[in-house]
């Protein structure tokens, strides 16, 4: 692996600021504009505040942050799609963006036409743009769909084509936004191979993702954005950990969306390993224990506590509901004001690698209609390891045997 050359800066960002004015009531017609007597009301959203950093040539640079932290805005400024309000961006070399899972396609056109159009946008001549087509389609494995209009493509095919267009471009700098969240296992493997290859090449990559494993795997360095500011920058492992810590700290704060103080509140939710050490990353198949503390503020009859685990696609992979006297519980089926409970135990770890979100519901009187609390994100964790197909990793014992003549004969007779 050739380390990036610190003397050569590929991207230099200095004091970049970006604010959006978000109208509380959107005016998008002339009629409304003309009939609005007062100044328009709007809320100022500070998307980026004084962001400065350097990326060296050849570096694989990760940008992480929670949703709304300004990652996408920053990427769009780097890609010259948005204009920064202040500050300056300088870049050495040409740039190929892959933003919001695409590179800018016209859905009415075929893959052939789009590849050509994209090439010309990147500054190639039409001739050169056309000559790229073969390589792009081969990588995307879409040769047979070359003349199909993109509106008839599946979303997976679109992402493959877009990623391939970006990878096959001859740009020195690549901007990649969250490509790992989509695609099937074989495509993800392909991405992984390409990432390893690029990491050790001269090309510079700016990589935005929520997948902290990917950050640690590929990135030389990373940067954490929080509320539009750079919180930390440096070693990718450390940045990934501070991201997870940030997520963990803030998750319970994003508590009940019921308004006001709920009758029961969540204290803490965590995962721990076999030794009882709290963890935010779990290896695939490793022993996994779940814990949560809750506090009642008013008496609640027959409470049920439900937790579900959803993967990055929003699919609920598993979940459980427990009560005080259910499933062999022996406690009185009632919580008094001020009473605290703790629930915990082992969860069979059949999670496939990826990012998971834990949701929590609490009901009273064992009735799903009587919601006490609903928290869409009480915990956020990552399972790492070798990726397999599907949503969960089930045990299997499959044998392969060679059938001999006699057995085949017997089969035939049956």
């Amino acid at each position, binding site marked *: 692996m050739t380390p990036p050359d610190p003397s050569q800066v590929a991207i230099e960002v200095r004091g970049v600021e970006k604010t959006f004015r978000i109208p509380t009531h959107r005016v998008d*017609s*002339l009629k409304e*504009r003309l009939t609005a007597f007062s100044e328009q009301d709007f809320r100022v959203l500070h998307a980026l505040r004084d962001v400065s950093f350097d990326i060296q040539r050849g570096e694989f640079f990760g940008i992480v942050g929670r949703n709304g932290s300004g990652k996408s805005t920053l990427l769009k400024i780097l890609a010259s*799609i948005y204009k920064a309000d202040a500050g300056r961006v300088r870049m050495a070399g040409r740039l190929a*963006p892959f933003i*919001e899972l695409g590179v800018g396609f016209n859905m009415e056109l075929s893959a052939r036409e789009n590849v050509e159009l994209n090439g010309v946008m990147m*500054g190639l001549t039409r001739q050169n743009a056309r000559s790229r087509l073969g390589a792009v389609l081969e990588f995307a494995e879409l040769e047979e769909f070359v003349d199909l209009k993109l509106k008839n493509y599946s979303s997976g095919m679109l992402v493959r084509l877009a990623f391939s267009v970006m990878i096959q471009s001859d740009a020195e700098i690549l901007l990649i936004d969250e490509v790992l969240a989509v695609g099937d296992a074989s495509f993800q493997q392909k991405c992984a191979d390409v990432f390893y290859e690029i990491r050790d090449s001269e090309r510079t990559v700016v990589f935005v993702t929520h997948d902290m494993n990917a950050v640690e795997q590929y990135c030389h360095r990373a940067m954490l954005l929080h509320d539009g500011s750079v919180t930390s920058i440096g070693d990718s492992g450390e940045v990934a950990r501070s991201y997870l810590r940030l997520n963990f700290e803030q998750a319970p704060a994003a508590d009940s969306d019921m308004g006001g103080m709920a009758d029961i509140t969540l204290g803490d939710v965590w995962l721990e390993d076999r030794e009882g050490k709290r963890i935010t990353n779990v290896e695939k198949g490793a022993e996994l224990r779940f814990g949560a503390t809750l506090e009642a503020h008013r008496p609640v009859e027959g409470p049920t506590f439900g937790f579900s685990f959803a993967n990055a696609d929003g699919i609920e992979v598993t979940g459980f509901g427990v009560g005080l006297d259910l499933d062999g519980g022996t406690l009185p089926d009632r919580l008094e004001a001020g009473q605290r409970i703790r629930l915990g135990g082992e969860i069979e770890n059949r999670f496939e690698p990826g990012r998971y979100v834990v949701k929590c519901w609490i009901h009273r009187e064992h009735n799903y209609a009587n919601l006490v609390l609903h928290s869409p994100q009480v915990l956020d964790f990552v399972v790492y390891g070798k990726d397999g197909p599907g949503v969960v990793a089930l045990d299997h014992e499959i044998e392969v045997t060679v059938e001999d003549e006699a057995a085949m004969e017997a089969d035939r007779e049956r």
Partner: protein
Amino acid sequence: MSAEPANLELREVPGPSAIGGGRHRFFELLWLMSVTEFKKTFFGTVLGYVWSLMRPLLLFAVLLLVFTQIFKVGSQVLHYPVLLLFNIVLFGFFLEGTGAAVGAVLGQEGIVRKTQFPRLVIPLAVVLTALFTLGLNMVVVVVFMLAFGLTPLWSWLLFPVILVPLAVLTCALAMLLSALNVRFRDVAIIWTVLATALNYATPVIYPLQIIKNETLKHALMANPLAPIFQQAHLWLIDDPETEGLITAAGGPLPLVVAALIYVAVCIAGVWVFTREAPRIAEQL
């Protein structure tokens, strides 16, 4: 296609804009976008070309019927059918260019939100596509003129002198409308009404000489499209009845007003588009 190390010095990233990024790239992109769009209309459907020709021809047939059989005005004017078909096709270019431009930026949302390229390409490509259509339709018009028995005139060669100012005005309006429609989505509706009004305020379906109300005729010449179409009439058909621009306008004043409006629209188009271009992606 290999990386050129000479390129690898730090350069300021300019951000999105109306033009910029090299003249070569601009024209390549403009050409490619308009040709693809053109191909899509003409070869995308089985009867692509037939359909796009049917529209002006059907309109022509209806108007010809109305103005020669019902209102009888057509029969007072020399070679009225030729004039009518020519005008419909030429005004069709203006309508197609401006009409398609209104939704053009919104229609290219996928590209605008994800790539950096000179935004001006979008409205100009729409006008260029309309220009290709005009070229094809003009072939039909010329065939019709010859079949109608018109003797070719030297002044027909002056057609570019008509087309250039019309195309420039169409471009300016295309820029203005495409940029404004991103912010105010009712521009499309407003323009539909305005375009129809302009159609009647320009001597397209009627020749100027049939208007008996002199004041009205003079006022019409203040519409920048009117002098263009009147001049086209003069050069298309050798008819002593057709009035020159100054006569039709009853003096230079309406023509000066028309010129001022023309310049104002052009300036507004360029100004609004360059001002909006850097923010277009944010407002989609």
